[in-house]
């Protein structure tokens, strides 16, 4: 198994740019880390999860559904010209990706999503490169390649044929991982505390058992200013709004990320609104991931990535709310 330095990886990713549209964690102007191209800033594999949801590479904030040109001809986007390669999924992010792959393919296949997703290469990042040096859980699969940081270099683990073929092209001389390194890293990963996951599980059970009273949701809802950040940061949130716009003689049907925290999200033309109260919307945000999706998909769809907690300006993200639920209603 190879190990590579950040610089070797940078060279590797750069060499793939002719074949792939490569997205890697980069540090921007003011230090914000995003998934961008190598030209946007220095490669920043270390520092933990990317604040922005990595699934946005396949399901961006704004996308075209189709264009109708001046001659009234429909133009639907096909598969992207260059396949996408994304580096930077954490173990939790990969769980999210697995779910939205399922979500976008079951029943009806969302071709707009799969135009980007099909043929893509997904690279996970884990090991000792979390925020402030914390250990990030090793995914052990669900991606083509995983880069596991041992504190000095990234162990390159390929899980798919495509991943193996690509990683063979990574140039990293004399870098064979010493015997036992992966075992040690795996043990470290397995020993990570699971407090947050446990809290979410417990909260999920309490909600499903009907142990959370209505006034709790009222209380949480009073702190929601409907900024929509929780939804827009969540890798398993897939809701979108569709609208038409004319542009230079063309008509573009477009979709943008939507949020169930908005009053207009379910408001019908008649004015009837099944989620017309803040409390109903707050309830939905938590209940959907922890109870409704369990019913529908057989599992929770909060993978405990923590992004909604990071972006919520009033501290009512998933983890905070679940903590309150467990404290009050266990």
């Amino acid at each position, binding site marked *: 198994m190879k190990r590579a330095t950040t610089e070797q990886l940078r060279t590797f990713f750069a060499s793939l740019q002719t074949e792939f549209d490569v997205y890697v964690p980069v540090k921007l102007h003011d230090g914000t880390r995003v998934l961008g191209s190598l030209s946007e800033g220095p490669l920043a594999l270390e520092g933990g999860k990317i604040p922005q949801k990595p699934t946005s590479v396949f399901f961006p904030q704004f996308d075209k*559904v*189709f264009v*109708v040109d001046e001659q009234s001809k*429909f133009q*639907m986007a096909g598969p992207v010209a260059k396949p996408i390669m994304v580096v930077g999924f954490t173990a939790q992010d990969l769980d999210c990706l697995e779910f939205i792959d399922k*979500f*976008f393919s*079951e*029943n*009806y*296949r*969302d*071709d*707009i999503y799969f135009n980007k997703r099909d043929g893509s290469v997904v690279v996970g990042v884990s090991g000792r490169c979390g925020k402030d040096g914390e250990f990030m859980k090793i995914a052990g699969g669900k991606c083509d390649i995983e880069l596991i940081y041992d504190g000095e270099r990234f162990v390159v683990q390929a899980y798919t044929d495509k991943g193996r073929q690509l990683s063979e092209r990574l140039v990293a001389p004399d870098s064979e991982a010493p015997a036992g390194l992966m075992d040690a890293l795996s043990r470290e990963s397995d020993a990570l505390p699971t407090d947050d996951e446990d809290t979410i599980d417990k909260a999920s059970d309490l909600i499903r058992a009907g142990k959370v009273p209505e006034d709790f949701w009222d209380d949480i809802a009073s702190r929601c200013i409907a900024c929509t950040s929780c939804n827009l940061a969540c890798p398993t949130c*897939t*809701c*979108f*709004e*569709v*609208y*038409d716009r*004319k542009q230079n003689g063309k*008509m573009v*049907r477009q*979709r943008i990320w*939507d949020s*169930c925290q908005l009053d207009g*999200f*379910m*408001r*019908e*033309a*008649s004015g*009837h609104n*099944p*989620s017309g109260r803040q409390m*109903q919307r707050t*309830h*939905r945000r938590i*209940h*959907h991931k922890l*109870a*409704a*999706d*369990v*019913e*529908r*998909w*057989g599992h929770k769809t909060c993978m405990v990535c923590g992004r909604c907690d990071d972006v919520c300006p009033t501290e009512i993200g998933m983890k905070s709310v679940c903590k309150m639920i467990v404290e009050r209603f266990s």
Partner: protein
Amino acid sequence: MSVITKPLRRETEHLYLPIPCKIVSVRDLTPMEKLFRIQMPDGQELGHKPGQFIQLSILGYGEAPISVASSPTRRGYFELGVRNAGTLTGALHHLSEGDEVGIRGPFGTFFDVEKLAGKDLLLISGGCGLAPMRSLIQYCQDRPEEFGKITILYGAKTPSERLFKEDLVDWARSPAFACKYAVDCVPGDGCFDEGEIGLITVLIPPLKIDVQKTIAVIVGPPVMYKFVIAELKKKGMTEEQIIVSLERYMKCGVGKCGHCAIEHLYCCLDGPVFWLNQISGLRGAI
């Protein structure tokens, strides 16, 4: 329980691409509602079942779910009864014969006529709810032999706001149906001699129904369901015998955009037609 319905229609390459269809006729139903008769290209059939909806597009104005108001047994066209409620529907009301609209679908669950076979049907609709119900009524009209006794109840705010007035008369005359109509009120010095004055719920207590053999179908404005269901329960009907069709804000019609979710169910995929026992415990469903 995981309720996932399989798509009825073969997956097309592009999920969101509408098929251009021609409007072959437009008829006023009320000052607010018009009936559009539409043909698929190249003589195709829409291939829907009663109770399903389509996504209707007018380029530049958007897309909205509209129930098919005609039965698949009427071949060569399908009909949409549409209220002018906003941007898209307003634009539609400006179109006329020969104009094009985009269609995706049909989508959603339907009134399962196979499961209804041999049953007495109690078809209850209010206001605009008659549009989707009409697809089932027409089906029953064309294949009365498949069902038992068929009763149609319809309520509207005022006589002039009633949809499909000619159909209502026609059905009332038909031996296949027993029809009972109501209006909430009669404004000014108008009169209403086709039925009762009062909410639709007044039509239910006098009905004689064979509780074991009856299936009730309800389509109407959101406020209607609770009261009608309560009346039916008083008659001894259970949630397993009641079908409802619900309306939700829908953007995609195919279970992706998330707007229509009722807890774990998507109204566009798992509905709009539900057995009442599927949804009765769910928050915000009724």
